[in-house]
């Protein structure tokens, strides 16, 4: 297809080793996640679901990171805004909708946890919780297991800028630094911990914290999926070759309120949000693809149609799926406590 064109002048993504198909796929996942997120907000406002926590504005970084990993074997510990990430590693819209509607077949938790609390052994997405940053030491534990068992996988964990202040970030990062473990810490610095802005959260630069733990920290424009991809690719190579962890701080802006329970204009202005909307990674990446000559309005319209159809299908699927049985809550406290019980 565009091989002859890119042969004339190598595109940025080609220089990074990404094919045209791959960057188009990245773009499609970014837009799918955005549309999914917008649909969730609508469904919540319509009273169809209880709660949604948004990842709008963070898709570029998540997709850039996911595509730099080995999606055949790496382990992931995403946090609650990582819709684009989990879509990149194989979770389907139907599965996300089952989760959103808290239905019995939700692969993440069987309708037990709030949406956005991912987990799927099949996809090597490690179950997460709401107390933030607890997943960081877990990621270090997976990386320790990789080292002990001489496995090639790398562990990838994400968290927000607020989380970078939790002890578990520091304890986990230090443990990984001491043992040079194959783990990548990715902070999605969206400038807010609910309402508290970055300057009231962090005294220095988050990326710099890595220095104290003996490994590199890199800050990168989180609205640029190719930059994130490049940095993550290097981080993965370091991890895989036994050089240890890397901290990647992806800098972006949380365009949505913290969650559907948050009124964000109580602590920030519309002007600030709008100014950041102009930096949104999705339209910028679309323009990049158009400039590369591999994307156009016609294909965009086609893709949006396709995403809409998939979302409509998934929404209907999620809405119509059954809830768990009430007494389901009694099971899986311990192994085998559901023995002798039929059905789910």
């Amino acid at each position, binding site marked *: 297809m565009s091989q002859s064109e890119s042969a004339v002048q190598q595109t940025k993504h080609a220089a990074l080793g990404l094919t045209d198909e791959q960057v188009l796929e990245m773009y499609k996942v970014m837009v799918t996640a955005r549309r999914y997120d917008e649909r969730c907000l609508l469904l919540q406002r319509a009273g169809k679901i209880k709660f949604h926590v948004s990842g709008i504005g963070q898709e570029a970084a998540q997709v850039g990171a996911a595509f730099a990993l080995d999606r055949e074997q790496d*382990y992931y510990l995403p946090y609650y805004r990582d819709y684009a990430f989990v879509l990149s590693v194989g979770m389907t819209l139907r599965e996300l909708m089952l989760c959103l509607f808290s239905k019995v077949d*939700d*692969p*993440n*938790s*069987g*309708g*037990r*946890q709030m949406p956005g*609390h991912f*987990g*799927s*052994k099949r996809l090597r997405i*490690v*179950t997460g*919780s709401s*107390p933030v940053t*607890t997943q*960081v*030491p*877990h*990621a*270090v*534990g*997976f*990386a*320790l*297991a*990789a*080292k*002990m*068992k001489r496995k090639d996988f790398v562990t990838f964990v994400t968290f927000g800028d607020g989380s970078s202040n939790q*002890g*578990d970030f520091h*304890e*986990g990062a*230090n*443990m990984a630094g*001491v043992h040079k473990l194959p783990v990548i810490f990715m902070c999605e610095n969206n400038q807010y911990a609910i309402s508290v802005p970055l300057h009231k959260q962090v005294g220095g630069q988050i990326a710099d914290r890595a220095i104290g733990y003996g490994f590199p920290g890199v800050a990168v424009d989180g609205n640029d999926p190719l930059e994130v991809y490049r940095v993550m690719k290097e981080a993965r190579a370091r991890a895989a070759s036994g050089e240890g962890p890397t901290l990647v701080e992806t800098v972006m802006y949380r365009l949505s309120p913290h969650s559907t329970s948050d009124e964000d204009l109580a602590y920030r202005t519309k002007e600030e949000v709008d100014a950041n909307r102009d930096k949104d990674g999705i339209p910028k990446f679309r323009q990049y693809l158009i400039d590369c000559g591999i994307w156009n309005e016609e294909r965009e319209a086609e893709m949006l149609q396709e995403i809409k159809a998939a979302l409509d299908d998934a929404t209907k699927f999620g809405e119509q799926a059954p809830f768990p049985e009430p007494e389901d809550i009694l*099971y*899986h*406290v*311990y*192994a085998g406590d*559901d023995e002798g019980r039929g059905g789910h």
Partner: protein
Amino acid sequence: MPKMDYIDAIRLAMKEEMERDEDVFVLGEDVGYKGGVFTTTKGLLDQFGEERVLDTPLAESAIVGTAIGAAMYGMRPIAEMQYSDFMFPATNQIISEAAKIRYRSNNDWNCPLVIRAPIGGGIFGGLYHSQCPESVFFGTPGLKIVAPYTPYDAKGLLKAAVRDPDPVIYFENKKCYKLVNGDVPEEDYTVPIGKANVLREGDDITVISYSLPLHFIMEAAAELEEEGITAHVLDLRSLQPLDKEGLLAAARRTGKVLIVHEDNKFGGIGGEVSAIIAEEMLYELDAPIMRLCGPDVPAMPINPPGEKFFMLNKDKVKEAMKRLAVY
């Protein structure tokens, strides 16, 4: 049958489990070259190497959190908390994470983790080297909690904990390490988690306890027998799940129940044991349920008179047993 100290039984259990399964490993502060501050892991590094006997940074949440991650991958970590007094930084990892991993993932993930933590005083450890924190974790569904008293149980329960598919807190009593000596079979065995054990049969009073106080109770029971009072002594061994049937059977045996633990009385395990008995067999009781526990102060002091006042001993236990017997 060989006799050994409680601490040696714990060490032997780890050694044998590490020999049996290469996924079993120990991690914690000073567990490696030093062999633990109490020598509990002494010799393990020489046999298994520093990767499987891992000296960690001084950071309890990372010790437990890392162990949780490794356990979810499929390893069988034994995380050592140097003193149970220092495990509170890891409480979020234990209660919010380990205890809920199977449940929150709807049985997709599990966390076969053992957390070993020395409890108890009487060693001039002051406020922060003497505590019994059982009640902090007790009542957290998803956790199992064991607290052995005999060397036999120390070994068998630790092996059962290592093989258990769910997280187990193993409260070992540091005063028991060298004080309690007993038979430990050479062959491989486990002690089932969730089963209490009758240490001594008797018909006048029932004493329900766990860990170190059983040492005093058994001494007192021997003396009381000479005075014509026979005590039925039940070692709970597992605090969670509690052996409801076992404790009810023990209570029924005499109709008079004394519950003893070193952890302070208010909010302690004795309250739950007592409630179970009251719910199930109030009218079979011949006396009010009695409890003998540590006083409701934050922790015991280092000064000898104060520590002695806090700690249980044979005389205190004997007096309480006698009081119940004559009720």
